[in-house]
């Protein structure tokens, strides 16, 4: 049986949940699959070949020339955007349409580069930035 106390508690919980998420926007944009150090741990300079790399990681996004041979670049992006409009809280009680917006964007751009010698064997490999994925966090200050 639902007592009045339980009903009030449920109403307050629902109201608090609604207020907490009021006017929220959460957006995420990802370009290709984010590579991690674990994904590229199989690469050993001096022994891993271009065929091995392409088999595991797919074709690169760009191929360029270097003094030692070729450089393959894998690019990826993970963008996180969140926004809260606290003006929504006042909407029921005001004739105007107030806005108090906090928003923040975390742009995680990174690339993984692999350099090969003329025989197609890896010379070295590294991430360009090693950006950690930022959490959804709308507070801009």
């Amino acid at each position, binding site marked *: 049986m639902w007592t009045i106390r339980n009903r009030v508690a449920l109403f307050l919980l629902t109201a608090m949940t609604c207020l907490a998420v009021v006017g929220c926007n959460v957006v995420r944009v990802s370009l290709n699959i984010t590579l991690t150090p674990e994904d590229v741990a199989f690469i050993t300079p001096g022994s891993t070949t271009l065929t091995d790399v392409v088999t595991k990681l*797919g074709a690169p*996004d760009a*191929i360029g020339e270097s003094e030692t041979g070729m450089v393959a670049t894998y690019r990826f992006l993970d963008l996180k955007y969140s926004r809260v409009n606290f003006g929504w809280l006042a909407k029921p009680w005001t004739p105007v349409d107030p806005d108090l917006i906090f928003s923040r964007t975390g742009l995680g751009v990174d690339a993984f580069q692999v350099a090969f010698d003329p025989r197609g064997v890896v010379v070295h490999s590294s991430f360009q930035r090693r950006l950690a994925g930022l959490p959804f966090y709308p507070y801009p200050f």
Partner: protein
Amino acid sequence: MKSTGGLSLLLLFVVLIQGCAFSRGTLGDEINSEAIAALHKGETTKDEVIHLLGAPDRLVQLNGRDVFQYYRYDAKAGSLLLIVLNFTRLSIKSDDLFVVLNQNGLVEDVISSKRTAGMKFRFWPFGD
């Protein structure tokens, strides 16, 4: 009774998909996998590559060799618009093909991958 249940399910489905948005964008034509299979190392010429795949999107010089790059991008966005709480997720992936031509104009290597295969519309922005 059965028709009432079916109607209720239909109404529930209609209510649940309210506030959903699906968007899609592509850049470039799909890279023909049959054309890729027709490229043979040491045999196929530069002219044949162009005949099969068209002009490359990008031409790169690599230690005296030509590299033809072909690419295609596919983007799928799913949005869940719940008036006070909106979720959007946009996924972009690319298909890439590199054809390395030696100094005699013959195919030396073919590097390709199709990342867009199996890409789905996603709504939930959290997690992987």
